[in-house]
């Protein structure tokens, strides 16, 4: 067996696929063959590396050189110059290197991201379990199974301060402890990969880029809480994630990392993928459980909570993909190491998606507590086309519209709370000066109206009322009192909706109307012109 001299990574994501990366890969392989390099240089498909809008991308190791906007016609030069002669093709390099650019080697990139959950994404072949193992994968699991009791695992996770990345920020160790201590022997761990929060695709990139990391985290979680079975509930739309996760599970079974007597111990653990069918509310943990049971995805009343009455009414821990993907590193490197990253109360990193009117839309992993300004202007490259910043919707659809004066907020669970905002899924939608906030709130309300499960009246009818009210505002038919009605109604919905979906609309509604009041008031005037509202 020859050890490849070089690894060439081709990120496959919607953007690169659109630019024809598949055809590019074929041509590249042909060219390598022509030069008898196919043994020496290994081409790998990987998940997204978080760079978008730059056409076909390519990363070459060991140098860690990044190319962008590649065309098939460039292949002969790349092979001839770089692969054969070892001289990177300067004019094809990723030009204006974004500040958030992933840096492995010290080759002059401006800034480094702190990567924990995404450390391997884009670096290894996600469909090859050996590559994961080669970079230290499954060492944490081995450590856990050979030298730690479940209680010790829980203690370590508690000590690390890891908090759920699904939105609510609940301490993960505590959730596991509740599940472990709950009565009964039949228990479940469920990975919440329903990722429906608009503007969020971090979980998809983890699953597509490093599926084994998630698996490892889940198996450790299963061991800790005393579960025999784990389910990954993936959004039905995420076909590639499902395929990659399935491949990972199949390989894990082959390596005895799943199944009977995991790694030769007496721990037995099975794993299955379940597929959603298009319902945002199924991201809510009890709705997810209902859906897993083959029902309409309508949330259950809480309490009782899933930790005591979950899947099939058995104790169940539901954890987000990103949460679980943090676990192997914590176990491997210790809780203290983890606490050294991020803030005191919110240790670790957070994966954010920066979207909208920024120069580099995409995904980054940075330490908790990084400021919003830093994220937008450094990692996101600032506002596109020389426009001015107007506001950001932080935390997904159930997030908060923040104006410029809040840009220095630290992005972690607790700091955001002070601004009555939430970290949510980590989605940051950046809006420039041309944006109409009425139109944006309209879009949010329409989303909720569409995704309300309809089970409870405050949300089912409330979202529709808000929808008709915001339409009135858009059409210039509203009175100032309608704005008050919207705020009051969303507050009542917060207090009386059955589940957090109906409860959370208050945040975008209130923050939009309060922080951008003038714009809303301006829309009340019949003669006001607004292109976005089509009037």
């Amino acid at each position, binding site marked *: 067996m020859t050890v490849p001299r070089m690894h060439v990574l081709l990120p496959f994501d919607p953007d690169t696929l659109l630019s024809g990366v598949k055809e590019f890969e074929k041509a590249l392989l042909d060219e390598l063959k022509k030069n008898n390099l196919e043994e020496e240089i290994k081409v790998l498909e990987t998940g997204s590396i978080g760079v978008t809008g730059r056409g076909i991308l390519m990363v070459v190791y060991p140098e860690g050189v990044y190319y962008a906007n590649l065309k098939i016609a460039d292949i002969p030069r790349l092979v001839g110059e770089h692969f054969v002669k070892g001289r990177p093709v300067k004019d094809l390099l990723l030009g204006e290197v974004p500040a958030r650019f992933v840096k492995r080697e010290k080759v002059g990139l401006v800034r480094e991201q702190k990567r924990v959950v995404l450390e391997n994404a884009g670096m290894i072949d996600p469909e090859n379990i050996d590559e994961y193992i080669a970079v230290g994968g499954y060492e944490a699991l081995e450590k856990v199974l050979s030298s730690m009791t479940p209680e010790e695992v829980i203690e370590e996770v508690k000590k690390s301060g890891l908090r759920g990345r699904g939105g609510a920020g609940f301490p993960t160790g505590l959730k596991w402890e509740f599940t472990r201590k709950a009565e009964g022997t039949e228990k479940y761990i469920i990975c919440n990969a329903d990722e429906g929060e608009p503007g969020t695709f971090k979980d998809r990139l983890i699953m597509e880029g490093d599926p084994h990391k998630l698996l490892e985290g889940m198996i450790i979680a299963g061991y800790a809480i005393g579960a025999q079975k784990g389910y990954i509930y993936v959004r039905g739309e995420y076909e590639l994630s499902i395929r990659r996760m399935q491949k990972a599970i199949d390989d894990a079974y082959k390596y005895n990392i799943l199944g009977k007597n995991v790694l030769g111990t007496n721990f037995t653990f099975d794993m299955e993928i379940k597929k959603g069918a298009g319902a945002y509310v199924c991201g809510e943990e009890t709705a997810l459980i209902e859906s897993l049971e083959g029902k309409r995805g309508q949330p259950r009343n809480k309490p009782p909570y899933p930790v005591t009455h979950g899947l099939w009414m058995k104790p169940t821990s539901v954890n987000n993909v990103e949460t679980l993907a943090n676990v192997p590193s914590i176990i491997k490197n210790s809780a203290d190491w983890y606490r050294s990253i991020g803030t005191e109360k919110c240790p670790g990193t957070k994966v954010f998606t920066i979207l909208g009117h920024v120069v580099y839309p995409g995904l980054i992993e940075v330490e908790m507590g990084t400021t919003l300004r830093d994220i937008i202007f450094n990692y996101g490259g600032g506002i596109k086309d020389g426009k001015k910043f107007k506001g950001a919707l932080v935390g997904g659809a159930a997030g908060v519209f923040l104006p410029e004066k809040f840009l220095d907020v630290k992005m972690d669970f607790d700091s955001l709370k002070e601004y009555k905002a939430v970290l949510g899924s980590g989605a940051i939608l950046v809006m420039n000066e041309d944006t109409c906030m009425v139109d944006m709130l309209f879009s949010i309300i329409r989303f909720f109206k569409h995704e309300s*499960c309809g089970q409870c009246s405050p949300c*089912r*009818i409330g979202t529709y009322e808000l929808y008709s009210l915001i339409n009135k505002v858009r059409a210039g038919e509203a009175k100032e009192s309608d704005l008050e009605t919207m705020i009051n109604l969303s507050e009542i919905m917060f207090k009386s909706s059955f589940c957090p979906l109906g409860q959370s609309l208050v945040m975008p509604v209130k923050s939009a109307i309060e922080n951008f009041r003038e714009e809303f008031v301006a829309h009340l005037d019949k003669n006001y012109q607004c292109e976005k509202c089509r009037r």
Partner: protein
Amino acid sequence: MAEMVKLFIDGKEVEVEKNSTILDAAKKAGSYIPTLCYHPDLSPTGACGVCVVEIEGSPTPKRSCCTPVSQGMKVTTNSKSLREIRKTIVQLLLSDHDVTCPTCSANEKCELQSLANYLGVDTNGLPAILERKPLDETSVSIVRDPNKCILCGRCVTVCSELQTVSAITIAERGFEAVVDTFFSQGLGNSSCVNCGQCTVFCPTGALSERSEIDMVWDALLDPDKVVVVQEAPSIRATLGEEFGMEVGTVTVGKMYAALRRLGFDVVFDTNFAADLTIMEEANELVERVKSGGPLPLITSCSPGWIKFMETFFPDLAKYVSTCKSPQQMFGTLSKTYFAEEAGIDPSKIVSVSIMPCTAKKFEARRPEMRDSGFQDVDYVLTTREFVRMLKSAGLDLKELPDERPDELMGMYTGAATIFGATGGVMEAAVRTAYWMITGKELENLDVTAVRGMAGIKEAELDINGLKVKVAVAHGLGNARELLTKVRKQIEETGKSEYAFIEIMACPGGCVGGGGQPKGSTFAMRARRGEGLYAEDKSLPLRRSHENPAIKRIYEKFLKKPGSGVSHKLLHTFYYKRCDLSGCTIESVTEKHANHH
């Protein structure tokens, strides 16, 4: 002893069982919490949010109807903010509602209406957003008006959990969510057995009976028609409460008076036909016991149950009594026996029945129910429709005198009266079967083991040394449970431990029927049943075979129980039905099967 939990409701300490809800605890503490979707006899759905309360330490209010208590919990049941929430929720519901109270079938009985009134809701605050949906008028028994539905989910719970029919479900999502049948084909093309329990539990006018009031008025006002009326046993125990009397008051004399005031020409009583049913059914039981016919004999007077059997247990059809229900026996006789005796052309007779039941509307329209040569029963009114007619005629039951029915088909015994309560048919049949088998009268007439609200009741009767095991089930969920067991016994051993089984589609029997007043709780049903048992006790004759009118009809017309005429007019046969659409597939028993 269940584990107890102490908590504070509005500052008052209460102790309740560990698995109680906050609402239970508040009741105990004497704090009133308004509710809407909650119903004491159903598992809570938590749909409306009206019952929210504040809990110390909880960032948002919680639904008291489905939130369990916990130790030391501090609950506030009323506050400015809670009132605001409740008002807004009702306002939201009304904004998405076809508010037509004055003409609505639920008017004055509607829980949404009274809550709106009680909370002082202002309907002008929010834009009306109702997107009108078409009515479901496919069923002969029930009309569904989605524009009055508040999606409380009670009907779905009733249909799936209580009745295990599952004809309806919540379909679609969000604002489009709607109560619907399979592929939106409508109740009349579904497995719905017309029991009407959903209409009783529905807090609004979204589910109601298909009204025949107008047809009945037309008949009453047509001088060429002779309108004959019968009233089911249970009606007499429910009418009173609709006119402010205590639940369970039996108002039979006033009921006759009211019917005459409405203009019915001949006022008979279904109870007569109930006594007749007992004669035929007890005879059938005795025959089957003697001749080794199929046992257990299962009663057949509940048409919701009959359709349920035809749909889900057609294999047990041969065990079901061939007797028609009292309504249908009466209907046939009204156009044969009565027509002959009174010398009236049967084509001029309009036979109307006042029933606690929506399934009777379906039964009356079964194509085989025409043994008189005409549709045997022309119109069926539920208790609710009857009450509306009385009110529209300005009649107050309380003010009316006690009158007597017309005799020919109006006299009855205590055995007939208790038909209206679960276990009653069994008890009545036992009284007469005993006499038929032994030639002696049963001394202790009260078969208390089969009375009461327990879902499935069993008893072992001693008929002159012959030990007979019987069972009673009411509510189709209980029926399903019992029959699944019977089916299994028959499959495994060739026979069942029971000789006689009574089944009623509705919880509590006819006093809890699907045509009874909205809001009938199990507790109310039980009290109505007690009212009937009390009437039975007070009557001079308590055995069907002692009824002089019954003796007369056998002498003059029917000859004897199980005779050829009886079989022609009073017995029937059953179909196997498609469990998807409810349509008939083939007949699975034959008429006149027992004909000698």
